[in-house]
């Protein structure tokens, strides 16, 4: 049973190896091979899940140590796996959605001559992501952490001939590296504090360490989470990451990888519980981001970027929940799972739309597509309802719980967080409705593409629609199923622990409030985009709108401060190295040369002047001897 965990990771890794080293002969079969390996890992996951369900609630954990990785004096890092309910949840999500998106990609990438490599990268990503969630120590988790970063780099930049894609990929990786720095420092702190960084000892004995250290660790972990989960202030890469193929955006930048941060924080719950200050930081980041993302999402006309903004904001919810501590962990994960469904669905829908519209991404050039691609419309619509939290659909349950928990934090803090969450819900409703209206309703605003031909949208092939349907189903029912007598809660509780917060406002009130803001949001959106026709070119818009279009200027800030500043720094350093550090050396050389040049004049080739110097020397010698005798 335990060995299967290793296999879980190895299967897609094998696929990646086969596809990447396989050479041209695999070009045709590549997609299906990749999908096969993904499916294999899904099957293994299912078996493991069954195995876990077979046991009783409190020992649903599997531990396996493959081999000792870095055995060095006083430093043990093993390649070991730890599978419990939390990681199992993730494994299922990753393999499930992953497999679906492999399937989708078969259709989506059908016409790309490098699709073999694409699937290789996808498999690589699966392997890394699975490693991330089943690792039993932070260092191994770090490996997966960077691995998914690599995969995302490769996949964002998959269409490398587009400079924008290449730049986006680089940006994503580097911003993530900043986060990784946090993670590695956190690991070092753990090592110096606990002498190890395996989950078991660290988390069990977290309380024994000083709170100061724990706070430091917590903040570093938060930094890591910010990087990977695109939270303020490291969120800037996610928008650009949409340069990648849509399946990638769906899998990596919506469903799985970006949620790694939530996993990290939930996994390290023990540390955060013991470090309130760190928790405060976490909830702050979460609250800020969920608003930030939502606002950005309102302004974007690029459908994928709008969805990216929404992803940010939704993950903001999760982080917020995770920051709330035991009252929030479960709901964070729950929202994570449901979000995985509907956001992946939405992205696949978007991909399908683009597929039909000659890769047009500007929503202002869509309109009235519901007739032309019904399946996409329905699945997308269900996803939409789910995300805005329409009663009865997944989003409703998970998000509602989070908002409650936010209020339940208690005190002014609780009110602020709850308010933020509510506001976020309203904005979510607004921008999602906007997306919906712009894309599927209203009159056609199609424009000829650069090849000058009007798009004639059509429904996508079966391989693409099936995953969309499955995901739609998930996004409709998942939340409901999870909430039936708190099955999900009971399932996770042994790992994350759970505490009922005492909310100042009753759950019912919260739900009602949520409904109200939801209606408001939808109504505004309808007023703006549903009733009157939409201009094809975006109006200049208010100051806020323009700022939001530019990611609230945060990107510009980065550019001016970090990029420009960095360029100046390096340029000046190059100068310093060349003229100062090297200048000293060359200066010495030059001075020696000059000196010898002057000395050379003494060697004038006249025997007599040599004789003079010899004679002088003789005189000096005599003087010396005399002095010696004198003293």
């Amino acid at each position, binding site marked *: 049973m335990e060995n299967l965990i290793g296999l879980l990771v190895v299967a897609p890794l094998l696929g990646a190896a086969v596809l990447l080293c396989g050479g041209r002969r695999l070009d045709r079969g590549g997609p299906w091979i990749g999908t096969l390996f993904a499916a294999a890992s899904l099957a293994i996951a299912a078996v493991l899940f069954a195995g876990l369900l077979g046991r009783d609630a409190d020992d649903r954990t599997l531990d396996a140590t493959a081999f000792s990785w870095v055995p060095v004096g006083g430093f043990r890092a093993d390649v070991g796996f730890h599978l419990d309910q939390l990681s199992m949840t993730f494994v299922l999500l990753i393999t499930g959605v992953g497999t679906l998106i492999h399937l989708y990609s078969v259709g989506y990438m059908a016409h790309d001559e490098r699709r073999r490599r694409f699937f290789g990268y996808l498999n690589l990503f699966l392997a890394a992501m699975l490693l991330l969630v089943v690792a039993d120590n932070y260092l191994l988790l770090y490996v997966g952490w960077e691995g998914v970063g690599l995969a995302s780099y490769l996949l964002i930049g998959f269409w490398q001939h587009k400079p924008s894609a290449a730049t986006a990929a680089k940006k994503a990786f580097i911003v993530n590296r900043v986060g990784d720095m946090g993670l590695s420092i956190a690991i070092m702190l753990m090592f110096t504090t606990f002498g190890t960084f395996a989950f078991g000892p660290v988390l069990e004995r977290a309380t024994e360490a000083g709170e100061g250290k724990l706070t430091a660790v917590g903040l570093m972990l938060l930094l890591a989470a910010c990087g990977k989960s695109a939270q303020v202030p490291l969120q800037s890469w996610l928008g650009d990451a949409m340069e990648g193929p849509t399946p990638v955006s769906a899998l990596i930048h919506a469903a799985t990888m970006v949620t790694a941060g939530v996993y990290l924080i939930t996994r390290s719950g023990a540390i955060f519980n013991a470090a309130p200050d760190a928790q405060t930081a976490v909830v702050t980041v979460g609250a800020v981001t969920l608003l930030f993302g939502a606002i950005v999402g309102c302004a974007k006309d690029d459908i994928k970027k709008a969805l990216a903004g929404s992803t940010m904001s939704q993950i903001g919810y999760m982080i917020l929940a995770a920051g709330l501590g035991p009252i929030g962990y479960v709901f964070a994960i729950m929202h994570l799972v449901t979000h995985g469904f509907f956001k992946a669905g939405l992205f696949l829908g978007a991909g399908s739309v683009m597929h039909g519209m000659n890769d047009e991404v500007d929503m202002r050039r869509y309109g009235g597509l519901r007739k032309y691609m019904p399946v996409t419309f329905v699945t997308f619509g269900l996803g939409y309802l789910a995300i805005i939290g329409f009663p009865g659909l997944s989003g409703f349950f998970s998000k509602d719980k989070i908002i409650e928990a936010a209020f339940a934090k208690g005190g002014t803090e609780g009110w602020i967080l709850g308010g933020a969450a509510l506001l976020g819900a309203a904005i979510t409703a607004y921008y999602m409705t906007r997306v919906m209206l712009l894309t599927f309703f209203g009159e056609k605003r199609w424009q000829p593409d650069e090849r000058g031909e009007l798009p004639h949208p059509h429904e996508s092939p079966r391989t693409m629609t099936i995953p969309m349907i499955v995901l739609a189903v998930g996004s409709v029912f998942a939340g409901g199923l999870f909430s039936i007598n708190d099955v999900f809660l009971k399932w996770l509780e042994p790992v994350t622990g759970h505490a009922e917060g005492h909310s100042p406002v009753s759950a019912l009130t919260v739900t009602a409030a949520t409904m109200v803001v939801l209606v408001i949001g939808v109504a505004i959106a309808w007023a703006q985009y549903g009733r009157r026709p939409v201009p094809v070119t975006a109006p200049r818009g208010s100051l806020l709108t323009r700022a939001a279009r530019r990611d609230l200027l945060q990107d510009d800030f980065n550019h001016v401060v970090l990029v420009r500043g960095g360029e100046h720094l390096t340029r000046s350093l190059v100068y310093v190295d060349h003229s100062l550090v090297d200048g000293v050396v060359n200066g010495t050389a030059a001075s020696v040369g000059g000196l010898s040049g002057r000395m050379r004049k003494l060697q*004038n080739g*006249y025997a*007599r*002047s040599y004789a*003079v110097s010899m*004679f*002088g020397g*003789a*005189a000096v010698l*005599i*003087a010396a*001897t*005399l002095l010696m*005798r004198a003293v």
Partner: protein
Amino acid sequence: MNASSPVVSSLAASAASTTSTGEAVQFWILAVVAVLGALGAVFMRQAVHSALSLAGTMIVLAVFYLANGAYFLGVVQIVVYTGAIMMLFLFVVMLVGVTAADSLKETIKGQRWLAALCVLGFGTLLMAGIANASLKEWNGIGRANAGGNVEGLAALLFTKYVFAFEITGALLITAAVGAMVLTHRERTERAATQRELAERRIREGKQITPLPAPGVYARHNAVDIPGLLPDGTTSDLTVSPTLRARGQVRDVSGEALDDLAALEQRSGDWQERGRSEDAGAKGAGK
């Protein structure tokens, strides 16, 4: 060397730390000569003169050797140095002739000053060294020379210094051979034939005919006397450039002209007398 010479009489007292007055006098006189000779050797403009004054110094030194009881060396000094080496010098001077090198004008910047500085410093230091060497006690050469100076030297030379002696022999032979090798020049290219020389002369066109000979009429045929041109002035072509450079050309054009005038004068007189005689002879005949 007879015992009555001041040199030998000085030797009697040579065990003391002072010399006889005779030697003192001799020293002070000859020392001045020696220094003068040395200075001359350094500062005379012409190599020949330097050589001669140097020879003088060497002779003085020979005397000093004798005075110090080094009879053998004294003689050798005169025979070898003054006799052989200095003559060799003079010979080479003649061979090499004179060049601009003889001018005492300094060409290297600062050389003189540096030289003066070094020399003065060196000299004073040397003197100072000798001065504080406190050489009060003199054994005198008398005892060493008891068995005769030459015999004593010979004894040392063929016992203690025999190896050095042999080596100097080798050195001398090597020197002789070396000198021969150095001065011997072998032809690298074929000697130019008469014809080629003639042709070259014509081609250069500077001096086609052979150089005119020196000397004037039948009176002067020495090489240092330039020949005269028809107008009576001298021609430089006729004397060797070396002599010209040395300024040893004897210009006799002046006296030659005077002689000519005198000659004409005398012949004129002679003709006068002859005319009157035959006039008288004509008158007596009636």
